[in-house]
């Protein structure tokens, strides 16, 4: 049985600063005394002991103790959502191949009431979008924030219980939103966050709680400067709250159809740029220095990238306002901002690849660094894809084709998902204090998710190009469908691989928790000028 080591936050922080570690001797002495007493009793009366006389085994709590219970719960729920989202995504691509394929379930209730759950292409598509963005990526991002923010800021999360309540509220809202899609309660589909107003109110309440907890946790630490990950998380959380609340209010304003559609397009683009991209980059800025043990290559480069992202993410939404009622220059400014997000990606990727220097061998096994490096490659390529798609000459060509869906799958399941998995693989063994090792499940998770997202995204984008080309030639829709079926078949295989990887992740986490060997982790804090390094115990 491992000797438990308990550290107070201030003790640990001072230990980190001084380069020494002082375990709380009271706890270790007490534990050792109890252990010795039990052993003495057992050795004295070993033959007389009956099974129920054995000393009680310590109970393993279902939820890890604070301070990491919120991070653990959000990340577990995120893993489950990835599995659900990948499953819905596979069904969606299957229905793209066979549009007539429709699952319809009828639940007769009392008083002549009936519930019809219809799973057709018009519902599984939005269902997939919502499950990925609000289920998997949002839970993973907030779980990552609860894990990273206390460690960098040196301040405890102000309320784990509050974070867990927010988890319940948020996921209830996501579940109700998905149910409203599949039950056909929504007046229209195909858009993010168009849930019924009470559901949106629930989600906004959860986001308010998350923002409150985050800023109350890191606020005092900001006075002595903040690491770039905290800056990304802070802006992303505020933007998510503001955008979600604004989008929820739009249906109440009785705007005309064009304005409503334009507002939704602006919302979807800025939400992706702020809420999906921001936390992914924040995670990568944390896990790569941690996994390699190297210092970040250049803090000023990271800060420059953050400032660019802060401005360009907002402007990039303007590029989606493609309507004659919007001034041409405004839309062009949005297109330029989307193009310049390639610069942001270039700075992030260059900075972090230089951080890895001397540690490339760690990227050869499917662990945290391998996930992070693949996420960097996806980050740069997806930024280029978005940038090219925003060019005036390309926009008209790919409009109405499956290119947009392919670009989303590539970015969401490639860039953001791989960054999220890098964090999950890094954080979970530390949260649960379990030994992690490369096994068949981790290997399956790594290759299936990145391979599947690459295949599915590329197949849908190439299919979109073929579709746009055929549409411009005036080809009949049945002939277009006959051509696209091959692209969709490949995309189906890709989505299936992602679902397989998600299943491997969930099983791996379960086995890690139930059968993993208990360990304590150490993190090396490299000294930039001195030759010595400091090692402290990390949870």
């Amino acid at each position: 049985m491992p000797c438990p080591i308990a550290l107070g936050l201030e003790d640990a922080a001072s230990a980190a600063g001084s380069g020494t570690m002082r375990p709380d001797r009271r706890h270790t002495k007490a534990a050792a005394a109890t252990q010795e007493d039990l052993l003495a009793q057992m050795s004295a009366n070993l033959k007389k002991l009956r099974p129920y006389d054995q000393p009680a085994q310590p109970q393993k709590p279902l939820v890890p103790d604070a301070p990491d219970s919120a991070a653990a719960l959000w990340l577990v729920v995120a893993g489950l959502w990835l599995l659900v989202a990948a499953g819905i995504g596979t069904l969606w691509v299957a229905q793209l191949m066979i549009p007539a394929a429709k699952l319809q379930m009828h639940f007769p209730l009392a008083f002549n009431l009936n519930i019809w759950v219809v799973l057709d292409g018009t519902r599984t598509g939005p269902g997939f979008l919502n499950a990925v963005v609000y289920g998997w990526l949002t839970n993973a991002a907030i779980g990552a924030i609860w894990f990273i923010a206390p460690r960098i800021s040196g301040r405890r999360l102000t309320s784990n219980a509050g974070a867990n309540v927010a988890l319940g509220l948020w996921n209830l809202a996501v579940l109700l939103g998905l149910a409203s899609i599949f039950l056909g309660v929504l007046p229209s589909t195909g858009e993010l966050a168009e849930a019924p107003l009470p559901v949106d109110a629930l989600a906004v309440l959860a986001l308010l709680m998350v923002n409150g907890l985050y800023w109350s946790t890191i606020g005092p630490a900001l006075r002595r400067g903040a690491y770039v990950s905290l800056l990304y998380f802070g802006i992303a959380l505020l933007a998510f709250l503001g955008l979600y609340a604004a989008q929820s209010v739009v249906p109440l304003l009785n705007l005309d159809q064009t304005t409503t559609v334009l507002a939704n397009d602006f919302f979807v683009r800025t939400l992706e740029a702020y809420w999906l991209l921001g936390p992914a980059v924040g995670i990568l800025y944390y896990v790569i220095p941690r996994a390699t043990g190297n210092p970040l290559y250049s803090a000023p480069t990271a800060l420059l990238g953050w400032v660019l992202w802060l401005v360009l993410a907002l402007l990039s939404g303007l590029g989606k306002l493609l309507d004659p009622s919007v001034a041409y220059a405004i839309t062009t400014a949005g297109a330029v901002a989307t193009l310049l997000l390639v610069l942001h990606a270039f700075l992030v990727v260059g900075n972090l690849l230089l951080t890895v220097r001397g540690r490339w061998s760690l990227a050869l096994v499917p662990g945290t660094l391998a996930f992070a490096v693949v996420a960097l490659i996806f980050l740069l390529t997806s930024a280029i894809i978005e940038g090219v798609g925003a060019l005036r000459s390309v926009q008209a060509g790919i409009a109405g084709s499956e290119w947009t869906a392919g670009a989303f799958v590539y970015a969401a399941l490639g860039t953001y998902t791989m960054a999220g998995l890098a964090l999950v693989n890094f954080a979970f063994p530390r949260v649960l204090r379990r030994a992690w090792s490369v096994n068949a499940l981790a290997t399956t998770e790594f290759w299936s998710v990145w391979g599947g997202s690459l295949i599915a995204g590329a197949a849908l984008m190439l299919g979109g190009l073929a579709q746009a080309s055929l549409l411009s030639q005036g080809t009949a829709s049945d002939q277009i469908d006959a051509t696209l079926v091959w692209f969709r078949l490949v995309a189906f295989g890709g989505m299936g691989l992602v679902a397989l990887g998600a299943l491997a992740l969930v099983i791996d986490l379960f086995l890690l928790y139930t059968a993993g060997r208990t360990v304590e982790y150490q993190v090396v804090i490299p000294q930039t000028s001195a030759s010595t390094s400091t090692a402290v115990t990390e949870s």
Partner: protein
Amino acid sequence: MTVHTPISSHTNRLPAWAAGVTVFFLLVGGVYFASNLSGTNPALAVPQPSAAASGGVDTGAALALIKKAQCQACHGQNFEGAIGPSLHGLAEGPLVPALKPVAEEHPDDWIHLWIDGTDPAVADIDRKGMPAFGTGTLTADEIDTVVAYLKTLK
């Protein structure tokens, strides 16, 4: 327990490559912006169906009214039927037997009468929870717009 483990930086200067690539991208973006200042945006965000394709029906207005009246909540996202019946093929006549007498008596405007719900011709028919939209939700002209669109659903 949480341990304060800050991440340090290898260098506190902006590397030359980062400054160079930033200037390069900003120049390219500036040139692109300057060369695309004038013009008219295509209507890509809100696809406008051609009059020929929609038979002269104002599809955009009809869909907005359908959204307002929340027809899809009961009749399905594609009007394929859910809690309420399918709305496809209404131009050929009603699918619900209870409406057939009304359709025979008012062949041109039975859909309007049914959606409106205030006319004596449909007063005795069990609406099975369907609201009477003529009581304030939709005007007579708006119901006509919706009916014209519904008749295009094959």
